[in-house]
């Protein structure tokens, strides 16, 4: 313990029980910085290849597709053209076209995202700051619902929609509200969970001060909880937006025979019906990932927070 190696730097505590021999051995087998960087550069390139490939395929004329690989465009950039995009956009708003699907996706995603965020905030507020008995049990039920697969609800909800249609004259099956409702319900457990955790971190005194200051429950929610919960709500919104935007199953079932389709359905049908229509598929796929990419790069911080908060879904 008291042996001081001459290699010990001046100033370092003399009694450090560091086994120098072993450390130098380990540093010898430790990969050098250069190797580390090379490994990670190669990994990063691997990860980029699919996206770059997709982008290039969508930017090459269809006629080149079977002749040479997309990677040849890396050395011959003159291959690249926007013609695929022009062709798709030139179709305009024909039902089940790309533009029409883009709009349908937005029509579903925006309301589903807003509703989940608002309802989750309300429910979480009630669970955290309300004082009715049984709150903790309700919260546990919601935690239990977090991982329930949507498959267990598909058929009964179709049945419920039918019954609702018989009673009210409006059957949500096959309509955009029908899809939105389902998404909202299955977005809520995660949304409530995330907002609950955030609200739990707000000192209770903050709300009590508000109560004493004369605010009613609604004002406390709107003036205190909601603004304080904004970061969490932002995470939730982004998460939910991407979740709904990328959904295929729910839209496939609940849009039924609707003449409009979401972008994911558009892509799915293109692969099914036109198995070799790679130019449409790749261009459509690029369009479908464009909005999530914008969201991702603009709000990465909030997105990461949402991912960390809800590493369960």
């Amino acid at each position: 313990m008291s042996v001081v190696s001459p290699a010990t730097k001046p100033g370092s505590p003399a009694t450090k029980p560091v086994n120098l021999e072993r450390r130098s051995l380990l540093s010898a087998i430790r990969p050098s910085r250069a190797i580390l960087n090379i490994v990670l550069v190669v990994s990063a390139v691997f990860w980029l290849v699919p996206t770059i490939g997709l982008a290039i395929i969508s930017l090459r004329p269809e006629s080149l597709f079977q002749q040479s690989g997309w990677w040849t465009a890396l050395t011959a950039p003159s291959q690249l053209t926007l013609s695929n995009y022009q062709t798709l956009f030139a179709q305009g708003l024909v039902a089940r076209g790309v533009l029409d699907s883009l709009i349908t996706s937005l029509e579903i995603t925006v309301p589903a995202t807003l509703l989940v965020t608002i309802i989750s905030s309300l429910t979480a507020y009630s669970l955290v700051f309300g004082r009715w008995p049984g709150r903790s049990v309700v919260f546990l039920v919601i935690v239990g619902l977090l991982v329930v697969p949507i498959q267990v609800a598909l058929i009964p909800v179709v049945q419920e929609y039918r019954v609702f249609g018989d009673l009210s004259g409006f059957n949500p099956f096959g309509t955009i509200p029908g899809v939105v409702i389902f998404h909202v319900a299955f977005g809520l457990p995660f949304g409530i969970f995330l907002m609950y955790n955030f609200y739990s971190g707000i000192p209770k005194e903050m709300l009590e001060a508000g109560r004493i200051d004369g605010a009613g429950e609604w004002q406390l929610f709107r003036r205190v909880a909601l603004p304080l919960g904004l970061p969490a709500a932002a995470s939730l919104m982004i998460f939910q937006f991407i979740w709904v935007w990328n959904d295929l199953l729910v839209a496939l079932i609940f849009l039924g025979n609707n003449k409009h389709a979401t972008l994911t359905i558009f892509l799915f049908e293109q692969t099914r019906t036109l198995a070799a229509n790679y130019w449409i598929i790749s261009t459509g796929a690029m369009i479908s990932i464009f909005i999530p990419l914008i969201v991702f790069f603009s709000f990465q911080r909030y997105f990461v927070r949402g991912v960390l908060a809800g590493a369960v879904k």
Partner: protein
Amino acid sequence: MAEIGTEATPRARRRAAAVNEGGNPGGGWRDHLGSLAFLAPGAIFLLAITVYPLAATARNSFYDATASNYVGLANYKEIFSTSSILVTFRNNVIWVIVFPFLVTFIGLVYGVLSERIRWSTAFKTIIFMPIVFSATASALVWRTIFDLDPHIGIVNATIQTASDWINPPGLYPVDPSAGQSVAGLVATGVSAGPKDSLESSSTVTAGNPVELGLIGISPATLQLVGAQTAVVPTASPGAVTGLVWRDFSPSNPTARGQVLPDELGFPGLKLTLLRSDGTSAGTAVSDAHGDFSFGSVGSGSYKVQIDSSNFSSGFTGIFWLGTQSLTPTSSLNQTAQALLSVPLVDISMILAYLWIWAGFAMVVIGAGLASLDREVLEAARLDGAGEWQTFRRMTMPMLAPVLIVVIVTMLINVLKIFDIILNMAPGSSQGDANTLALAMYNFGFTGGLGNWGLASALAVILFILVIPAIVLNLRRIRG
């Protein structure tokens, strides 16, 4: 003198307010009502669209295809006795065994390594980015990547490049998988030799030119190799000379055995002169007119061989999205095959899914790493632990809860795996790549009215499989 606390002088207690534990002052039940109004929208959605349907699905699973007649356990019996459905369990098992651990491992490696580079933000962004892509779009991307045609799929293109380098294809590839054969090229003066080679039908001697006619090679190929008009070779003493030509004249399609003016020679063919005992007496390569010459040949009779390497087709692509099994099961019966084979398409899809989710694992684990107590790690270093020991004895155990979260999250995720399979496995592989969630969709919602009883039973099984995760989550929240 001071007032004394009333504990010493007890008086009858008056009850002014009901005991309500946890307590809600002031408004009493009216405040509860306020809180409950906040709760109502969420409660209605959850009860109507998740809680009630859960029960209804359980009920439907005991009913027939139209969910109207009770059939007992028939749906479950059918599931466990139909090999095409049992395949879904096998695939779910493959996903569950392989994917969560693999993705966590990669996430851990990237999480740890990326902390030590300057461009870690860029690196993490690159790895994390695919998480925002839909599984549908990702599946399409990866379908292209794994495309069979090396002109389309970059994986096969890469393998082809490597393989061509080691074992280059001949100038005149014959692809057996496309129904072609070397023997099918025989036209005039040649016959099939051993191992996909061709040889002259008759023996040859020095000074006597030989003419070897082939057919069945496309003009495009010939154009590519720069073929020119076939020229009958001149006799040369002490040498075996000859011609290999395309015995097909566009102007005279039926004429065989003659060298016509619009017929082309085969350039670049690798030829071997064989002694009668089969050993090589020399090699030659044909010129642009298809002529060749073996010099300084002794007397005796020989055969001219057109080497098999001329026809080697090289690498033509692996069908990554196909169903060939990685485990040898072809000798087993159908049910055993369904349960034990590991189709290649599963592995390809797992790779695609890794691409999507590795960033998630990396980010969650990275956050876990960042929240570790640095001082503990430093203390370990001072106690003499090296880098690897610190990692294994300190970092890993402290990180264990995070790793478990990632594994469980990914486990639930792949139990429900659906879109990637629907979109990535081509029609011919779908049946072999099928999973519980996809089968549930197929039975419930495709092919006319669907079989709701069976689909519900599949959904119930799926639910039962996630129950351990539910329990784990509840434990984690309460503990």
